[in-house]
């Protein structure tokens, strides 16, 4: 067995074990279930309303966008995990064993993808149970859902890793939620993007959040609802293009940044970070 294959296998094993920990750890489950659950509570209150001018349930029309948003949260997932595990020394441990770093990264991809997939599946299943009448994607719809999910993960994970490698501690994560919240509010997740001003639409279309939402809407919503989208089109080609571009950007940025982060990791660095975390607490 060559070291490369060994590290791949170790990464997959590690991912599997950590995923099983995550699915059984209340705190992490809470973290990933928080949004889906909030969403369903809101859904239940919105049950009666419909999209203006149609019979289509308003809640069901928002659901695909929320799935898209959850995929974008994968970025925060990786960034947060890197910041946390840098502080507790898990990353340093990975550096201390042969081929530990690549295996560690493979594991993180598996864990965050697995957790994101679980929360997406949860929203989807809940949605189909509650609004099965409105949401019935055909074979084409399911296919779109799968490729948008897969490409979406490839787009957001490396960028998340790059961001995570720049964070000095887990507390700085909160600084990221603000811009992400702003981005979500202009990305047509909870109301159609076409109701916003043109230049705002332009900004939103630079980032993956809008395209993830659009891709999921195209997969799950009936064709008639395309009328509220930009250009009255699902724009699959553009979706693939923008998400692909983010994937390329992330895959270019992440490796050198991760290597730089790993190089700087040492027992004393971990110790110093812990000391500053303690100071904050006390």
């Amino acid at each position: 067995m060559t070291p490369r294959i060994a590290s791949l296998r170790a990464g997959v094993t590690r991912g599997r074990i950590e995923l099983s920990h995550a699915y059984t750890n209340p705190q992490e489950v809470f973290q990933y279930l928080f949004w889906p659950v909030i969403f369903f509570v809101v859904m239940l209150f919105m049950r009666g309303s419909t999209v203006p001018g149609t019979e289509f349930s308003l809640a069901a029309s928002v659901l695909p966008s929320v799935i898209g948003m959850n995929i974008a949260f994968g970025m925060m997932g990786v960034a947060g995990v890197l910041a946390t595990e840098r502080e507790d020394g898990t990353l340093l441990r990975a550096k201390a064993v042969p081929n530990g770093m690549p295996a560690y990264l493979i594991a993180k991809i598996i864990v965050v993808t697995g957790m994101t997939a679980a929360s997406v599946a949860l929203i989807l299943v809940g949605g189909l149970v509650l609004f099965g009448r409105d949401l019935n994607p055909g074979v084409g719809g399911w296919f779109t859902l799968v490729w948008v999910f897969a490409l979406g993960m490839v787009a957001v994970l490396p960028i998340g890793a790059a961001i995570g490698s720049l964070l000095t501690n887990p507390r700085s994560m909160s600084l990221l939620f603000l811009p992400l919240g702003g981005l979500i509010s202009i990305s047509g997740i909870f109301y159609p993007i076409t109701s916003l001003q043109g230049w705002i639409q332009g900004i939103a279309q630079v980032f993956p959040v809008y395209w993830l939402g659009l891709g999921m809407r195209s997969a799950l919503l009936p064709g008639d609802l395309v009328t509220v989208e930009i250009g009255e089109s699902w724009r699959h080609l553009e979706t693939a293009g923008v998400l692909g571009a983010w994937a390329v950007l992330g895959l270019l940025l992440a490796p050198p940044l991760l290597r730089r982060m790993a190089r700087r990791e040492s027992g004393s660095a971990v110790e110093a970070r812990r000391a500053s975390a303690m100071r904050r607490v006390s």
Partner: protein
Amino acid sequence: MTEVSELSEEDPLARPPEDGTVLDVCDLRMRYGSTDVLGGIDLTAQRGEVLCLLGPNGAGKTTTIEVLESFRMRSDGWVSVLGTDPAHGDERWRAGIGIVLQSWRDHGNWKVRELLAHLGSYYRPYSTPRRPRPIEAEDLINRVGLTDQSEQRVRSLSGGQRRRLDVAIGIVGNPELLFLDEPTTGFDPQARRDFHDLMHSLADDDTTIVLTTHDLDEAEKLADRIVILAGGRVVANGSPAQLARQVTRDAEVSWTRGGQPFVHATPEATNFVRELCAQYGEEIADIEVRRATLEDVYLSMVHRHEAGYAGEAAAEFHKREVQP
């Protein structure tokens, strides 16, 4: 092993490179801004040797070890670890090294056995007939005394148990060279004894061990050679016995004669006792001969350094070393 350590006390540059040299450090320097944390350290270790780094807080022990582990970049100097500069060590090199840092708190979610088995698997591709890798998790758990905790989550271990796990992880890859930074903090006396046995058995398997400790008793029990650092410099280097002789050649003889206590310091303790007995015979009781302990050596070396005699102490050390 003591013979080997005496050989290694020559100038590392003057000695022809030999197969048995696992660790070779020459004039290692570390600077943060304008402060010199390490001011030119020389160290060597031979295969199977147990080297103990001692020194007050902030002396530079952890810094030295982290440079050798490749976790930190040195500012200057020449370093060879397992024949490679740690700054350029590859994964195969990494597989030959075991690391126990001063403190760990990673992998809190994992179970003890699960973590050991998993981390061990990274070493499997580097297994050789001479050094089978990894060591079985089960075996390791028993050796460090975590049998009852093997299914427990790491975060729920007590401080000492966590430390035992750290030691187990350090040796799971059956390393040729093992670094331990204060491994026995939090160990109860039994765990300490078990740890010493474990270290001896590793050294018997030709594992080279570099450890730091503040427990001088432990250093005396484990070390083939002791290196005392102070203020980023080596102020003493030798076997425990050599160091003791360096501080003072005198032994302290105490006895009672007719119920009255006496003390006398002499370099010739044996002769002195013989003569004492010849002179007073039955009157003498409670004879005790006490030679300088490592603690005496340590305190005197560190004091000398702190009093600003660092250079002198080192020079004196070299002078004495050339004498038989």
